[in-house]
């Protein structure tokens, strides 16, 4: 248990959950503050461009609404990633459906990358983004969860609904692709 800035030992997620269940609203603030940025980074790394804040919010609302089903078998963060990933998949399905009915305009492509291009100023970051774009969606999820979030293969398998072995294979293929891409650039 890490010490808090005040010197007291940092409360675990489970302790905060129990406090929230007992009616302490500040416990929810602590939990959201602890995990929200990781969720935002995961969404961005997984290719989400717009509405990340809304996605993170939906993830927490869903998670807190079904917190009774969280038994602590995995870490809370892994569980949150799992919920967020499901929401992302739902969003993508909905987007695909709307694209099937609404003709895609050229400006859509421009706006999709335009905002990000402005935000990723440094060349190195741009190269990394491009190398991640070269991965398959699952490879990218596995790779970013492993490298950026530091999850174990077991946790990754849980998040992406796969096996540890499959997660390992995805990671090795991903690092090979990224390495080659960065070398060629």
């Amino acid at each position, binding site marked *: 248990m890490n010490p808090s800035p005040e010197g007291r030992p940092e409360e675990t997620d489970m302790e905060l959950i129990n406090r929230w269940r007992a009616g302490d609203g500040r416990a929810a603030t602590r939990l959201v503050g602890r995990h929200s940025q990781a969720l935002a980074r995961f969404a961005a790394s997984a290719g989400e461009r717009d509405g990340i804040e809304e996605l993170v919010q939906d993830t927490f*609302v869903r998670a807190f609404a079904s917190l009774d089903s969280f038994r602590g078998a995995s870490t809370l963060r892994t569980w949150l990633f799992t919920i967020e990933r499901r929401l992302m998949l739902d969003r993508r399905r909905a987007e695909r459906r709307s694209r099937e009915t609404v003709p895609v305009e050229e400006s859509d492509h421009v706006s999709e990358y335009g905002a990000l291009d402005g935000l990723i100023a440094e060349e190195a970051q741009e190269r*990394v983004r491009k190398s991640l774009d070269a991965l398959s969606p699952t490879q990218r999820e596995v790779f970013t969860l492993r*490298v950026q979030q530091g999850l174990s293969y077991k946790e990754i398998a849980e998040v992406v609904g796969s096996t540890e072995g499959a997660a390992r294979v995805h990671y090795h293929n991903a690092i090979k692709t990224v390495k080659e891409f960065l070398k060629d650039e």
Partner: protein
Amino acid sequence: MNKCTDSDIQEMLPDLLHRALADGERQRVEAHLATCDSCQEDLEVLRTVKSAVVFAPSIDVDSVVRQIPPYRTIVPATERPARTRVVSWLVAASLALVVLGGGSVLLQSNGSLASRSRIQQPALRIAKVPDATKPSPAESVARSRTVVQPIIAPHPQALALAADADGLSDGSLVQLMNDMNGFDALPASEPDPVISVDSGDSL
């Protein structure tokens, strides 16, 4: 540069980056890195990827927390389905309808079977039996006694009263019709097998 074949070490590189290794493992990985260019290159790639975090917006924690309902107002997952409860009631109502409907159909079919079996029971035969106390043929007709006797109906739906009408004379038929006009009503319940009706009496 030779490719490293130590997959254990390769897999631990992200953990080294996140300082998630136990001391022993960390020392082992660092010792390997000192001699392996391939793993050094991998670690450099991982560092670049980790530090070049794709832009993620800063999350307003308070606005997120405001959307979270307090614990007590959340319906527990096990009790949640208000919709499911409605569906359960609908299913129960449907089942009740099916059972009641089926039951009534069954009762009805039993009833029709019973009435059919009644029809197939010996039907009533109306015959004119001459009254021994009335020797005159005219009086015999006028005062004849109508006797209803069981007969086997030639057809399930044949009327018992009409079963033997062919054998009656015109006068007997007239008398029979008059007798029938004097009936208050046909019996609603199953008639007794034999009913005797005196011609001058009303039922």
